[in-house]
């Protein structure tokens, strides 16, 4: 019995070693592409700006003065006076300021980060499947699924590390400046990683099937564009004919709702109840199905 346990432990250790090889290969490639260094540099710049170039004066929960690079301004907003019923200018509250900054950083990281990240990681899967490389990898004593998982984990862990570096840094900088610690902002990190993962499923699977990472990127960007149209379902469904509405609804339920997920994050940041988690869950389901197809094809195709 003990011998069996020992043998199973050794086998598990060997498999972990093999997985670490696949992970390391992906990390090194991302490092060599200078992608990680570039994003780290931009993120560092973002939270250094927030830390040193921005000065805030908070009086009774409102921003009384804001200086960016020494230039003073008072962020304000139009609010309705309850007594008179008139719209008046009023200094913005710290809460709203934090939500605004957080939403901006999340939006930038979500859209720009995902679009650039997909563009930058596109050659990665192309290189991984290149003749002369994939055949050597497959000849090693590990299953194809494990090999692909190592690659995928490498990409997703890198995205997680980069998103954490940016969001956590910005969160700490803003929180120190304002004295308000809203941990809800950190939910942006898993949201970015999950939605990047959903969109990367298309890059991965289409490249496996077609061997064209360019085609995969075009399709992925196409889906993001379609998701912007699908996000306006409340307005568009009113003007569509019944048959067009049916097609629109099918698209809405089948395709990832990349743009609509931003609304979930906005509601979370502003402390509102999330109106619907459906866009996130349907996107995860879409990604899971596409990954399933990608894994299935990767396991059975000849290289």
């Amino acid at each position, binding site marked *: 019995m003990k011998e069996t346990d020992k043998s199973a432990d050794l086998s598990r250790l060997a498999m972990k070693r093999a997985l670490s*090889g696949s992970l390391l290969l992906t990390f090194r490639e991302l490092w060599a592409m200078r992608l990680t260094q570039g994003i780290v540099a931009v993120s560092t710049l973002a939270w250094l700006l927030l830390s040193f170039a921005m000065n805030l004066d908070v009086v009774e929960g409102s921003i009384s003065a804001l200086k960016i690079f020494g230039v003073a301004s008072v962020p304000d907003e139009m609010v309705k006076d309850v007594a008179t019923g008139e719209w008046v200018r009023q200094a913005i509250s710290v809460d709203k300021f934090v939500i605004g900054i957080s939403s901006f950083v999340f939006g930038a990281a979500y859209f720009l980060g995902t679009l650039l990240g997909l563009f930058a990681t596109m050659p990665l899967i192309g290189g991984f499947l290149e003749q002369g490389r994939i055949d050597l990898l497959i*000849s090693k004593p590990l299953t194809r699924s494990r090999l692909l998982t190592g690659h995928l984990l490498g990409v997703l862990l890198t995205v997680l590390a980069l998103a954490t570096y940016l969001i956590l840094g910005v969160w700490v900088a803003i929180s120190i400046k304002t004295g308000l610690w809203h941990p809800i902002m950190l939910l942006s990190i898993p949201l970015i990683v999950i939605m990047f993962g959903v969109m990367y499923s298309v890059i991965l699977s289409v490249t496996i099937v077609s061997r064209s990472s360019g085609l995969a990127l075009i399709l992925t960007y196409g889906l993001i564009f379609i998701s912007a149209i699908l996000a306006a379902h409340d307005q568009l469904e009113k003007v569509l004919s019944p048959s067009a509405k049916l097609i629109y609804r099918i698209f809405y339920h089948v395709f990832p709702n990349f743009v609509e997920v931003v609304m979930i994050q906005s509601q979370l940041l502003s402390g509102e109840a999330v109106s619907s988690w459906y866009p996130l869950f349907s996107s995860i389901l879409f990604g899971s199905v596409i990954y399933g197809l990608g894994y299935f094809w990767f396991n059975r195709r000849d290289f």
Partner: protein
Amino acid sequence: MSTPAITTQGLTKTYASAFGRKKIEALRGIDIEVAQGEIVGILGPNGAGKTTLLKILLGIVSPTSGSATLMGRPIGEVEARRKLGYLPENHRFPPYLTARQTLDIYGRLSHLSADYRAKHIPLLVEQAGLASWIDVRVGKFSKGMMQRLGLAQALLNDPDILVLDEPTDGVDPVGRREIRDRLRNLKARGKTILINSHLLTEIELICDRVAIMNFGQIVRSGSVSEISTEGTGWRIQCRNLPNALDLSSYNAKREDLNTVPVPVPVPVPEKEIDTGQVSQDEVNLDPNVEKVIILDSGLTETLNALIDYLRANGINILSVERHRRSLEAGFLDIIDQQKAKS
């Protein structure tokens, strides 16, 4: 009797185009058995199915039907590949990795421990003649250096079976000799080696056995010497053979002079050269000039008849042996016969 290193039974592979409209039969029932410790060369023209066969053994391509084993294990099992080394044709190592990092990653993928990798990687790199390049990015390596590194990678897990696709491609003659020596050492250690190469002279020098493939089938297999002598006639070495002697009725010919050992020069009197009256036959009649006759027929009756004829004409016969072609000539003959049949 030990388990064969490699076996295949009725292995077929059919590639189908999109929607299955066009089908290409890459392999049509391959049956081979390679014993442990053998070096076997797979030969064949382009498109014969050699690479497909190797890729099926390595699990890179799945067979349409048939089965195969490596050290007794079915090829589909991950464990079957644990003690396997592979050098693909035109392999592409990530150019941003150094030689050490490359071998480290492929070592991990082969389940090798950190201690083993730390000990063996510098050793293998040194054996490959790349010791001073160990921490240089492989993107800077020449084709020959990449090939040496590729071989080091294939040997990293001390494999029982080594599959090499064009191992000497791009390697200079000195490097090729080193690779040959290493392969012979591996054979001496009981390793099984399967080689696919277009350089038939390399195959001839290394392999115990060759399998010739054409149109997805093994059309001939045997030892290098069997392939080289198969269907060939006789080689007769003699002296005093005048050019005028007619050999055509025996379907025999004089071998190209370039392939005959250079005869000892015979001093010719200056006077005769000056007058230009010395015939070639007279020079050849010198007892020191050796000639070779190639008899196409392998029949001993024809050989004996020719020997009688030569002896009757006063020709001094030095030796009679089976005519041995180069492996390349044998290979081309077999492929030509196949073409003629098809």
